[in-house]
């Protein structure tokens, strides 16, 4: 399966933020999306999540045949966790499992999901409004993974985790990557290099893959920085 973006354009008034992106994202890989502040990473995610209307171009899934993206193809984890504060963690999961019944082929029990995410037993029946920032983030990540979407968009997802949880999440993402296209935006180069299979740079409104070929880590880093600098 592939996510294919063709000539995608997005303007805000007269400012062209995305100037005709072209890219093929493949299943089984984690893509590190790098870009300077204001480069349009979040705009790109918002377009793919159909929160914003496009000003040109298209994107679709190629899975033997071409088809448009549907709601359940996409999971989007925002950098600021958004969870309904009036529910408990357990209730939120229950609701999500129920509305995603069709997608979840082999549902586990709710507690198994909590275990998977290392969420303490004592926290499972608390209101989400009393969760810490990091725990809300875990919940957000979890419900996005449960639905088993083909494409996972992660916007700066690990920055709010402590080092231990960040490590757990990294392992978790690696463990599920074979079934997904994971696009991961970040400002932290080390994280991108450590976790991602491909590095993609969003610069001056276009997407560009940076290939490592036979460069060592230092040279590869410099190459990325140079590309980002060309603004």
């Amino acid at each position, binding site marked *: 399966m592939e996510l294919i973006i063709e000539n995608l354009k997005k303007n805000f008034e007269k400012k062209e933020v995305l100037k005709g992106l072209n890219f093929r994202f493949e299943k089984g890989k984690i893509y590190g999306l790098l870009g300077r502040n204001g480069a349009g990473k979040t705009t790109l995610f918002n377009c793919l999540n159909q929160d914003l209307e496009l000003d040109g171009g298209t994107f679709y899934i190629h899975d033997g045949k071409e088809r448009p993206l549907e709601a*359940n193809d*996409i999971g*989007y984890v925002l950098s600021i966790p*958004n*969870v*309904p504060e*009036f*529910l408990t963690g357990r*209730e939120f999961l229950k609701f999500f499992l*129920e509305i995603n019944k069709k997608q979840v082929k082999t549902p586990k029990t709710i507690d198994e999901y909590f275990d998977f995410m290392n969420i303490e037993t004592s926290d499972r029946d608390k209101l989400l409004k009393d969760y810490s920032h990091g725990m809300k983030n875990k919940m957000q990540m979890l419900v996005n993974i449960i639905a088993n979407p083909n494409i996972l968009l992660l916007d700066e997802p690990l920055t709010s985790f402590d080092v231990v949880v960040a490590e757990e999440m990294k392992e978790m993402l690696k463990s599920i990557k074979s079934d997904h296209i994971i696009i991961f935006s970040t400002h932290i180069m080390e994280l991108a290099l450590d976790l991602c299979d491909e590095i993609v740079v969003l610069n001056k409104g276009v997407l560009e893959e940076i290939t490592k070929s036979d460069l060592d880590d230092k040279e590869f880093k410099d190459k990325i920085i140079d590309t980002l600098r060309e603004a």
Partner: protein
Amino acid sequence: MLESFIISFRLKNTYMANSIIYSIKGLPVLNKILPNRLYKSGGLKVFANIVSILWEIVNTFLGKFLYVLLMLFLMTTLYDTNQADTFLHIFTFLTLIGAISNTYMFNPTKDKYYAIILMNMDAGKYAISNYAYSMLKVVVGFLPFTILFGLGIDVPLWLCILMPFFVVAVKICAIFYDIWKYKRTGIVTNENSLDKLRWALIALLLALAYGLPVVHVTLTRTIFAILLAACLLFGIYSLTQILAFKDYKKLYKKLLTPDNVYMVKKATSTETVKKNIAKSIEYDGSFTSNKEGFAYFHELFVKRHRKLLTKSAEKQSFFLIAVVALVLMIVHFVPESKEPLNYITLTFLPYFVFIMYMLNRGTTITQAMFMNCDHSMLTYRIYRTPQVLLGVFKERLKTMISINLMPASIIGLGLALILYATGGTDNPLNYLVLFISINAMSIFFSVHYLVMYYLLQPYTVSTELKSGTYKAAQLLTYLVCYVMIYLRLPTIQFGIATIVFCVAYTAISLVLVYRYAPKTFKIRL
């Protein structure tokens, strides 16, 4: 010093001008046409600057004019005491109140916050120069009116001229006291949240201002002149102390906290609303639900927001029952009231459109839905699939209608009862029309608010209301309902027309929601 003032004045002007442009851009059609460049556009900037300077002028004179006219001059004429003395008497005590409640220096305004905290301007220079400017505004703003009204009431001209300076002197003395207190205790006075003692003092002064003349006790112009001289002298001393004070930065750091700056004046600011609504979640572990999917989700929402949703409708209902009972008692004990009340039930139905509008809690409910629920849920793509979205919509519509029907049915029933008790009608259809049309109005408003919310979704990620169209639709709703107050139409005709309209509106808008909401119901980015 002057430079500081000019910078701060330009800063204030710039953001005033920008807010004016921002409001213009918030208007429905215009926001599509006008680009962001607008903030840079010279012509519009000039226009906005002119508006902002005009505002400064109005702000200098209008308030003072109204104050002198309404609180001093007209009040004075109510008493049969010596008019000039009474005028000075009330003026003196109100000026003391003003010195406590309106210090300028200790008002945590946005101007100060931007300049001192965000822009790191020299706090001392900023405080003194702006204070001098506001005192100048006091003198310039007061002078024409103390002379005009003072002379009109036989106050000697020299006193009229000195009156504004009295205000300034008293204010400066008060500031000196507050700074002195700060130096001793470290406590900063915030004029927007006064302590009990100050409120008591204000009440006492107010009583002295308007109470003493009732018993024919007032200050005389001689006493006023002595007070004036004393205040001027002490004012000059205070001024030297204020100028010598060095710790403005520290003082303002304490005063200008975001809480003070943004919350006290506007209890409606989005942050406050958000906090309050988030607080309204009730949870004691006993509320659960046996339903599934979105019905489960919605039921928990309703149960955890009982105070916000059902409780106030219940309160409304009890209040309305009491009103109906009261009217029925009046009818029983005062037979003369029957005829006019009977007339009201048969011709005042349009007025009830406005009452139903006022009673409907649609805006509060949709706001809570957004802040506590949709704000987070809309970021999940699955929540926006037509199936889930419309499923939740249906549940919400049921809740919204049933909440609002509680008080509505009491009004409907009450009106029919009152009609019966006041002698009835030739056409029994009136009873039915009264009851049904009131309930239809209630359903209409419930549908209207929810549909507007789903079709226009006016809130942004930061939970601000940012849709000119939505605001315009709200305003239009209000205007239409308000105009209804002035209509007198026979209940049968108007009632039937209302019922037909409500049914048609509901049907059409539901079709629109089912067709368009999956596209329109998303967070504004």
